[in-house]
């Protein structure tokens, strides 16, 4: 049995779903729990092909509730475990993720967004931003990485395991059906050769007899009184806030020179970046800001990037889910916010360009 799925670096040509399976394998994930749903199925197809070759496990559960809760069980027993889902499956996944959030259980979930509400199309969508960042009956103490390429899918799936285990907040890789099915080349590598990988540890079943050699683990998220919950939650919120500066990631371009700042994330950012770079080369005063972490949101970085902007354009394949994050994080800035909302459909560079030109030329208010 092989131990290392990848040694050194290797250039490959894959679809996004396969990339996720390889990344989880490379990161040392030991077990995947999941329930089939388009457009993430190939993650499971490839994980189940690869897992036995490397001594890894898989369980196809009865639904996403079970996928999430068996995932929690696997993590509690000390395994690097993960799941993947989409759309209505992500809705069901919110219950176990709420438990993970409340009990600081380091889960990793890959979300391949699809059209909504409820069940719908399976390619273009950025409509699971609200759900993934803030789903569940809690405060959204999660980490959400929005990827835009296969290289990022690989890098951030690996990173998600480290983030989850280091900070102990549920961690999500948020992509979409397009990234899932798209084909492009990337470099896969053994992360153990490149970076420090955070090792998992068990929450239950540690050596010794509980009550005799050690204290028993009594894990819960039920509390008797509001004050008790408040105390526990306040500690978690403080931990989260403390981690924010270490967690936030973004990318920006030409913000010093730009009068128009375009904000987009995920695969839509790719279109936006192409359009903005083309316009900038033509001498137009335009730049972009792309949050990589949607949760926590790179607030300070956005404020800095927007300092010179006279107007901002938010572009997304959703009806204002990124926009709400931007508005909240730019509170107090006196800059007009323009929008390009295309819920559940794709956005081309040409479309972004056209909108930018109209805004720059003052032809659109």
């Amino acid at each position, binding site marked *: 049995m092989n131990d290392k799925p990848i040694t050194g670096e290797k250039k490959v040509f894959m679809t996004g779903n396969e990339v996720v399976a390889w990344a989880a394998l490379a990161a040392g994930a*030991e077990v995947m729990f999941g329930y089939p749903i388009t457009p993430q199925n190939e993650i499971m197809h490839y994980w189940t092909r690869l897992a036995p070759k490397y001594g890894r496990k898989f369980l196809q559960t009865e639904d996403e509730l079970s996928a999430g*809760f068996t*995932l*929690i*069980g*696997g993590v509690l027993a*000390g395994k690097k475990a993960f799941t993947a889902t989409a759309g209505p499956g992500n809705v069901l996944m919110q219950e176990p993720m709420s438990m993970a959030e409340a009990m600081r259980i380091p889960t990793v979930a890959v979300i391949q967004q699809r059209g909504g509400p409820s069940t719908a199309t399976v390619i273009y969508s950025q409509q699971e931003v609200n759900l993934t960042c803030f789903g569940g009956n809690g405060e959204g103490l999660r980490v959400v990485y929005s990827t835009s390429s296969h290289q990022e899918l690989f890098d951030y799936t690996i990173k998600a395991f480290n983030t989850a285990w280091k900070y102990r907040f549920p961690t999500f890789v948020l992509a979409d059906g397009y990234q899932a099915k798209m084909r492009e080349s990337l470099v896969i590598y053994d992360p153990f050769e490149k970076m420090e990988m955070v090792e998992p540890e068990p929450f239950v079943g540690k050596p010794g007899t509980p009550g005799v050699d050690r204290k*028993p683990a009594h894990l819960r998220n039920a509390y008797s009184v509001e004050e008790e919950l408040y105390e526990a939650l306040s500690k978690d919120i403080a931990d989260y806030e403390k981690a924010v500066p270490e967690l936030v990631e973004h990318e920006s371009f030409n913000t010093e020179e730009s009068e128009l700042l375009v904000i987009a994330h995920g695969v839509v950012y790719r279109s936006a970046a192409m359009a903005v770079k083309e316009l900038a080369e033509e001498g137009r005063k335009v730049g972009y800001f792309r949050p990589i972490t949607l949760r926590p949101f790179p607030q300070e970085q956005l404020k800095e990037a927007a300092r010179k902007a006279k107007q901002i354009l938010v572009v997304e394949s959703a009806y204002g889910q990124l926009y709400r994050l931007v508005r909240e994080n730019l509170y107090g800035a006196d800059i007009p916010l323009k929008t390009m909302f295309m819920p559940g459909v794709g956005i081309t560079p040409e479309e972004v360009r056209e909108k930018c030109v109209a805004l720059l030329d003052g032809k659109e208010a």
Partner: protein
Amino acid sequence: MVEILPKMPKSWNPESKPHKFCPGCGHGLVLKALGQAIDELGIQDRVVFGCDIGCSLLSWDFFNVDTVQTHHGRTTPVMVGIKRANPNLVVVAYMGDGGGYAIGSQHLVNAATRNEKITCILVNNTNYAMTGGQMAPTTMPGQKTETTPYGRDVEETGYPMLGPEMVAAITREGAYAARGSVAKFAQLKKYIKKALENQMAGRGFSFVEALSTCPTNWRTNAAQTWQFIEETMTKYFPLGEFKVPEGKED
């Protein structure tokens, strides 16, 4: 010679005693049977106990064993995940009739079908006690609850669920399914112990339903409580083993 057992099982957590169940509640007896079984099998160091939402939640610090309180109905999958990740552990999913037969029934059915090597103990007290006495999947025909104020109408809401019979029907050789009662403690303990041993032997899914008392919501005195569990309930929910691995019959 009669062996005198200690009053409190060794695997119990003395710091959380006296426990928090109502007077006359059967949970304490089910957990005593489980505690004694853990002691006798010498597995306190490798049991992971999972408790559901509902009255079973009150057992979250009941034992000196590693314990996870989960969400309503979700104890079975959490224990499945733990067991699969570390097969050396002995996992117990402890739940009420709502958690096992209603909101989490898909997990029970599928864990049984997959022959997961876990032990489920389900407490049947014919109502949702913690939320104030509503109808449960196990509420008896004609029984009054807060959501069946005129008595459970089986035309409207069906008949009580027969869990161990269902588990026996959907599992293959290696599984264990039984129904005990807190009114027959020695038998209940024997079933629970067999269910744990079955998991430890790696044979298969092990399920014990425990008929239990809820005088608080039944609004019964001691005699009436005993009469309800021993006579009324057992007419519908027969005690006994419904599936026993080969060679493990009494």
